[in-house]
């Protein structure tokens, strides 16, 4: 699925028309974890949520086919969608969590289109809930959750109270394939539709994208014969 990415001619963003979209891989892992928790009877119901234009309902259906009970489509399209970022999404999720009386929000650690890695953290902050991010292992223990986190130094284990926000890292689990019977059952599951305004969320972006460029083409390197030459060159171009 390696589509070549191109920058729009007006440098306002990246071309997304005609590119096949699918569920963010870390979100797949998050859905899988939620479904597994439900299968272990540790949680009662799994609701799959997505924010965006009509096409995102396909992604919600995939989540339903993996085992979620119902879906919520928060409709955001056009200019609002182009400007939508982690802050707006976090506000939506926070409002929904309160409305649905959720005890756990499980997200992918980051989306692979913008690599922001902010939504989970912002959502927890807005709700003043504890967060277990970069989770590679999740264990529910009564009203608490033990989370093993992947951090730069290795693995960190924390225990947080519910309600909480978790973000899934790569090694948390291997997402299941939807089975044919589950895909058919998913058709009957409900996807509620709402708008950010229904949740009292303002979608105004605090961030303005000035310009999007491709990374500079890699320049050819220069070979040097001795260490002295190397030091001289580094001095000459101001690196040292």
């Amino acid at each position, binding site marked *: 699925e390696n589509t070549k990415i191109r920058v729009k001619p007006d440098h306002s963003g990246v071309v997304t028309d005609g590119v096949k979209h699918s569920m963010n891989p870390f979100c797949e892992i998050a859905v899988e974890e939620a479904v597994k928790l439900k299968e272990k009877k540790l949680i009662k119901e799994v609701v799959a949520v997505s924010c965006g234009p009509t096409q995102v309902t396909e992604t919600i259906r995939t989540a339903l086919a993996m085992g979620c009970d119902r879906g919520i489509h928060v409709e955001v399209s056009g200019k609002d969608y182009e400007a939508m970022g982690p802050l707006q999404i976090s506000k939506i999720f926070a409002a929904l969590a309160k409305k649905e009386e959720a005890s756990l929000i499980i997200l992918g650690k980051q989306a692979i289109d*913008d690599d922001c890695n902010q939504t989970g953290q912002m959502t927890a902050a807005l709700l003043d809930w504890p967060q277990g991010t970069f989770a590679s292992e999740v264990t529910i223990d009564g009203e608490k959750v033990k989370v093993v986190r992947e951090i730069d130094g290795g693995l960190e284990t924390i225990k947080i109270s519910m309600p909480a926000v978790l973000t899934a890292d790569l090694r948390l689990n291997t*997402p299941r394939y939807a089975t044919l019977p589950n*895909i058919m059952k998913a058709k009957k599951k409900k996807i509620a539709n709402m708008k950010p305004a229904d949740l009292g969320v303002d979608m105004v972006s605090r961030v303005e994208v000035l310009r999007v460029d491709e990374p500079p083409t890699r320049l050819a390197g220069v070979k040097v014969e001795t260490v002295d030459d190397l030091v001289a060159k580094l001095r000459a171009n101001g690196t040292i």
Partner: protein
Amino acid sequence: MAAVGTFSRVVRLSSCFGRRCRLISNSAQRRGIASCIDPAHGLSDEQKEFQKMAFDFAANEMSPHMAEWDEKEIFPVETMRKAAQLGFGGIYVQPEVGGSGLSRLDTSVIFEALSTGCVSTTAYLSIHNMCNWMIDTFGNTEQREKYCPELCMMDKFASYCLTEPGSGSDAASLLTTAKLEGDHYVLNGSKAFISGGGDTDVYIVMCRTGGKGPKGISCVVVEKDTPGLSFGKKEKKMGWNSQPTRAVILEDCRVPVTSRLGQEGQGFNIAMRGLNGGRINIASCSLGAAHACVQLARDHLLVRKQFGETLSSNQFLQFKLAEMATKLVASRLLVREAALALQEGRSDAVSLCSMAKLFVTDECFNICNQALQMHGGYGYLKDYAVQQFVRDIRVHQILEGTNEVMRMIIARSLLSESG
């Protein structure tokens, strides 16, 4: 997206990141912007879900192993069982006996997608499905409940036994006899080229209980380890190497009369009804191979340079690729129409299934062969998947009724008195 400043990272909108970064060696499953041959066109949302899942399964579970399965002649039992857990063991078998209860069109879409991962294994899956359906459709309650659930989960594997050394195209002249002795049939004879033979558990055997011709043929289920059932040597084949092919030998093999599917004399009809669907499935497998090869060829043309340009600048190759794509889409439309006709019980179903099998297996072989040519010398190397697609689908023009027999069926339909 980005804050102030230039966007300094490469953005990947859809990368093969899931499933723990498994690398895809034969990256034919790309679903990028070649949208004119996109196999999702015209499908319902639900069918697109099936297709997506089947493509993912093919890319992750089959494609990385396709070359090894071919080289080492491995029958990938575990992978097929994984497929069965997703519902691929009895796709058009009824849910009450463990099947997925899907339509012929759904089935075609699924086999087309799976075939991009490994033609040979998908083709065996389709044969297994055909046998499962035959028991589900023509079996009585006891037989359906005995066999179908296990076949749907692929706890047991099935084989279809019609062809004999002396009767291929002239299938109705088969010689394997089934003599009634009390409450048993005693089977004597041999079957040739049986897919899965020797490694499968349930054999659907067409045998003669009555007089000459099709009306004397019955269909009997023979289980592995029945005394009198033995197998020939494993055949060495040009392709289809992930499934074993052996002769099935019956020497005074006794099976209870209760193993007979349907009535005495109904066997040939059952066999042919099974093959209608089988032909759509085999054609669908050819489609998947051709789709994969068109993508492989396109990718190669964009990369390979000669005479100072990429091959994609060469008009002859551009035109050839366009022809391949056109024939691919035409083939796909014909198979899907045949599937629709069969599931709706239309009067033209049998002819359409024959037309689809004839046209699609021929055209798709040409597409794959042409894709190999476009790869130049590299196309001949086993490091490149295109040669395996060519070798694997070559037999689709021969089995489940040769393409010559398909012409017979179509001509008969055109020239018959009531036509």
